[in-house]
């Protein structure tokens, strides 16, 4: 079970890593601010002194939160992401993670349990056969990375709205958070979680989800950027407390819609 005693060390580890990474990010931002001088007078125009990087950062993250609101407003819960033909699938589909392909976590099918916590009626963990027995859907959609590249893939699995209903989730809650086997974590808004194309993906391109694409379980959100599509998902929580995310906590926009 996903109880607090087990959860705490994992979360702390992630926090420490994030702190270290954001420190690194801060240094490169400082470097940028020194470089800003080469843009000639820009700092004068904005009225910010070069040492004010903390204020600039604060202002930018405030705008990023504003952009979350703007994206939630633009998001149409019924509008479907474009779907594609099988011939349009990108082959080979790119591997992408915050680590190299040989570091992909190894998950043993029989040992796997999907944990469910938070504002849900049924907190029982799910085995893979149980998930495979639920109604399944399939989609061929475009995966868009925050870096700009995109790739078309074919995902199959349980419609996430269906799963949320089965666990008796409080769908008036704000967030759905995901914890992964590789210590990745992210969260999405409830409206996107309930979107008809959001899947608890168990298959890729008609096969059991391969390790490099997130075995045994990936959350496919066709209306969001790649970093909002967690792989190797081991725990799902429905919550009103902002869960943040691995990249989001380092400065990436939280909503990450497409």
């Amino acid at each position: 079970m996903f109880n607090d005693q087990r959860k705490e060390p994992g979360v702390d580890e992630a926090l420490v890593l994030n702190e270290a990474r954001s420190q690194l990010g801060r240094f490169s931002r400082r470097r940028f601010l020194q470089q800003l001088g080469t843009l000639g007078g820009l700092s004068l125009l904005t009225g910010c002194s070069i040492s004010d990087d903390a204020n600039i950062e604060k202002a930018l993250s405030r705008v990023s939160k504003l952009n979350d609101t703007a994206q939630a407003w633009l998001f149409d819960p019924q509008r479907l992401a474009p779907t594609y033909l099988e011939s349009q699938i990108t082959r080979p589909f790119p591997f992408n993670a915050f680590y190299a392909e040989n570091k992909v976590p190894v998950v043993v099918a029989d040992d796997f349990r999907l944990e469910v916590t938070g504002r849900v009626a049924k907190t029982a963990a799910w085995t893979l056969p149980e998930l495979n027995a639920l109604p399944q859907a399939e989609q061929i959609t475009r995966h868009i990375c925050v870096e700009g590249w995109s790739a078309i893939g074919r995902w199959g699995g349980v419609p996430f709205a269906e799963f949320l209903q089965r666990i008796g989730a409080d769908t008036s809650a704000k967030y759905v958070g995901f914890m992964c086997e590789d210590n990745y974590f992210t969260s999405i808004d409830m409206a996107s979680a309930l979107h008809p194309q959001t899947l608890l993906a168990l298959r890729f391109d008609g096969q059991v989800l391969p390790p490099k694409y997130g075995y045994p379980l990936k959350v496919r959100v066709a209306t969001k950027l790649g970093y909002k599509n967690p792989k190797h998902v081991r725990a799902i929580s429905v919550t009103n407390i902002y869960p943040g995310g691995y990249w989001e906590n380092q400065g990436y926009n939280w909503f990450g819609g497409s």
Partner: protein
Amino acid sequence: MSVSVPDVPQEQIKRPAEKRPTIHPVWLRLTHWLNALAVVVMVGSGWQIYNASPLFGFRFPSQITLGGWLAGGLDWHFAAMWVLFINGLIYLVLNGLGGRFWRKFYPLSLRGVVKDTAAAFQGRLSHADPKCYNQVQKLAYLLVVVDLVLLVLSGLVLWKSVQFPLLAALMGGYDSARFLHFYSMLFLVGFIFIHVLMVLLVPRSLRAMIRGR
């Protein structure tokens, strides 16, 4: 001239002795400089974003990119986009409502552009009346406005391709919107290069854009 803006007649009353009419009303100067600021931030941060996944076999040197890393570049880009968009909207609305577009850019002909371009290269292009754009200026300024609209629209497709399906289809899909966004950035940078060069050659045009006359 935009009579609806109170600053214009006021300034004329204040300085009747100068007898120099306002070339650029205050709203135009404000939108011009806000746009310039937004464009510098958008281009610098855009190059940072480009570097995360280059479309071609090169990256922009980090000295001329904004944001330090991808997330920083994105934060700058998606902050300055509001300035570019809202300021651009104000510019278009005021130009349209006041009829300034028509007065400034009509007439414009291909023959006129060719004639004025030839004259410019022979150093014979007159700047006697700074209120009047020559044919090359008219074409360049109109094209850069269209280019900025194209940048915003293709950017909208990149930012929210699912939410703007019609726009995405018009751009030929997500991937071609990336190229369109890049090429219209190139056009904009090319324009800025020539624009700044011309300002250096005709410094009083800079004074007109700052002081209004």
